[in-house]
């Protein structure tokens, strides 16, 4: 079974802090994604990566950056956390090949609260 793990289930940070969310997948997947999930809005794509050191902006990249130094690890960085970044953050991965048809495998999520 594919396993996608996220470093924290719950995180509380203060406004202005730098926040790191870590995601690791164990199935040698090519593609990795970061989403945020908000009630009534579903999931919105923040960034994705289709290879080591490669990244592409999603729909809502403002205020976020990412890092992928190793194939299995994809980090989301909030440079200066703000209260409007309080949300559930979900990481996902897909095998590669034909990304549009691939099943996305999700981690359990990190619920981030910024005070």
């Amino acid at each position: 079974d594919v396993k996608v793990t996220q470093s924290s289930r719950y995180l509380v940070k203060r406004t202005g802090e730098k926040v790191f969310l870590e995601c690791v997948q164990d199935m040698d997947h090519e593609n990795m994604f970061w989403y945020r999930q908000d009630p009534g809005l579903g999931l919105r794509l923040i960034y994705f990566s289709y290879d080591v050191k490669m990244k592409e902006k999603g729909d809502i990249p403002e205020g976020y950056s990412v890092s992928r130094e190793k194939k299995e690890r994809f980090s989301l960085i909030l440079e200066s956390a703000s209260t409007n970044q309080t949300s559930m953050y979900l990481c996902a991965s897909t095998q590669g090949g034909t990304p549009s048809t691939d099943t996305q495998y999700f981690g359990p999520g990190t619920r981030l609260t910024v005070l």
Partner: protein
Amino acid sequence: AQSVTQLDSQVPVFEEAPVELRCNYSSSVSVYLFWYVQYPNQGLQLLLKYLSGSTLVKGINGFEAEFNKSQTSFHLRKPSVHISDTAEYFCAVTRSGGYNKLIFGAGTRLAVHP
């Protein structure tokens, strides 16, 4: 651009009753369609997907969905629900071919009552 509308934000239903969760999409090109489920305190997992071929798609846990191109719909159905089906369900669409991101609907919360 593609978009997805899930017509019901919440669906309450009694155990063993049938259920339909509605999903409509908008796209000017061919699409692939997905249903994902999120159980409480968990990430999402794939229920089923339509890529091509038969318009009736069967998924896990007894769920099925029917692709209707003329009505641009992809409704999810189950003939008899269980308490364990209580979860949030997300419909998603992507353009067919190449690399295209997944667009998710807002979600439908299914609450199954005894």
